[in-house]
């Protein structure tokens, strides 16, 4: 019995290793658009017992994105619950960024909207987008141009604080201003 199990385990391990060898492993410098699959996988037919069969899935790895969160102290605007209204305390911050953009028309920024964790991912993505666009509109009223600002959203996908209470949620309802 033990021998049989070991034999089966070895067979399964072999199959797993074979599977790994056929996966697509893009290195981190690979372009993210139109990632190249391994042409040897996906031919999902044939009589080989180790073949992918009708269940084959090819793995794609995409590289590490830049994480700018650490460099954004003093460039974050927080919002009240269920609100995208820019609070008075953040108007000076937004004005200073708008002036900088107005003075250097080649300068561009991204505004990322974020929400707390409550509710659906897609609806929160739209709520975060609304926050980012509210900040963008304020800056355009102050002299920045449309082409200098892109408003995007992470919804609830990238909390600044991973906690599950109001203190954490207050830190997560935010828009981050990032140079690009």
């Amino acid at each position, binding site marked *: 019995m033990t021998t049989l199990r070991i034999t089966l385990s070895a067979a399964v391990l072999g199959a797993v290793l074979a599977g790994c060898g056929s996966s697509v492993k893009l290195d981190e410098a690979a372009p993210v658009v139109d990632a190249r699959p391994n042409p040897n996988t996906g031919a999902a037919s044939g009589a080989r017992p*180790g073949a992918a069969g009708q269940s*084959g899935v090819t793995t794609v790895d*995409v590289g590490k*994105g830049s994480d700018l969160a650490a460099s954004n102290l003093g460039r974050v605007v927080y919002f009240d619950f269920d609100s995208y209204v820019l609070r008075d305390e953040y108007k000076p911050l937004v004005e200073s960024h708008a002036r900088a953009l107005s003075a250097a028309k080649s300068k561009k920024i991204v505004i990322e909207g974020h929400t707390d964790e409550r509710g659906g991912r897609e609806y929160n993505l739209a709520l975060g987008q609304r926050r980012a666009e509210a900040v963008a509109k304020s800056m355009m009223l102050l002299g920045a141009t449309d082409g200098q600002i892109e408003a995007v959203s992470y919804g609830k996908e990238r909390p600044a604080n991973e906690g599950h209470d109001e203190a954490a949620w207050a830190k997560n309802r935010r828009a981050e201003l990032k140079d690009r």
Partner: protein
Amino acid sequence: MTRQLTIIDGPLAYNPPASPRPGHGTRIAEANPQQFMLRTPETPESSPRRRLLMAGALVTGIWPAALRAQFRVEITGVGGTQLPIGVTRFRDEDKSGQSISGIVRADLERSGAFRVVDSAGEFDENSRPAFPEWRGRGADALVSGSAARLADGRFDVRYKLWDVVRGQDLGGQALAVVTADLRLAAHRIADAVYEKLTGDKGVFSTRIAYVTRVANRYTLRVTDADGEGGQVALNSTQPIISPAWSPDGKSLAYVSFESGKAVVWSQDVSTGERRAIANFRGSNSAPAWSPDGRTLAVTLSREGGSQIYLMDAGGNNVRRITQSSAIDTEPVFTSDGKLIYFVSDRGGSPQIYRVASSGGNPERVTFAGNYNISPALSPDSRMLAYVARNGNEFKITTMDISSGNVRTVSDTVDDESPSFAPNGKLIIYATRSQGRDVLMTTTLDGRIRTRLLSSGIDVREPIWGPFGR
């Protein structure tokens, strides 16, 4: 075939864990033998001895597959009409490396429509079962079969189904498969048994996709409908959300943040070939396929605000179909392709609306409560499943569209992302349990729920694939 390799299910064969899980005991005790569909008038009572035998069958028959797997299914509710069935070990299944009978048993149990009785015994599709003995074990139906290695290395997997009550042969099938498809063969057998005995098409051989997160590692996975046999479609250090199967089951559209913002991608699952199909200024999200697979509905913010657009499957011919200053998102097509259900907060709170896919004036669908999101439509588009907020609780809710009758079907409070099985009998959804993101399935009446147990990783964004693969 050699007899000494025929191993009756037992602790040595599968090395099950030392202590039984409490859930199974509860489950057995609550089974109601009065309502089994094929039950003859002389129903044997559920004696303690019989319960013990059933517990033995569960321990040896269901756990082995579970032990190898990343996911485990734990049945948490019990329905009223379960058909008792015997599923013996298939002759020579040990040689195939998969517990074919174990997979069939687990599938049938998870559907909520079957209860597996003591299935010890050895025979195959050519045997003549001793029906009185199986009636004595409480079985109304019986499955057995075999797995034989063919000269070309494939396996010939065969099964036969019997009506134990009438002593009738209900037919069988032979499937020649490569090793990688042995699990699929077992699921197809479970599908055939399910369809023969319930009249509904089984979904055990379909696939699901979902996203796992471990620290900052996001992985889009494709697994069998039982959560096992998992394969990785995409690894990323950035979030992945909203996967959507193409109607032919060959592609997944999804939202990836790998480029620093939400972009909609479409990926051929078998080859890994992928393209960014919606990468406009702002956010691109919420992909939904039309039933013919030619069109995608997406949410774009390229003109400011989140609005719904249609594009062809390659990302061209983009046209806007909602016109509001509010949030319009989470589109989903009806099965005839004529309508799109979506979420809008144009009335002040997020509610579900529908609009002709050619555009026009939307009509509001949900009215109760002030937060109804994430619509999913049953395959016949008669039932709507969505997430309704009540206070701080987010719960999977169903609505019979013609009558407007609604029903809460979950007992959890952080539910997200409902998706119907292609036979319309189950809904898979994400929720939180004990501090983890987990996946659950439920019957439409909420009576039978199963949890896909993950080993300490967060699992979310499930989407049930179509029939066929």
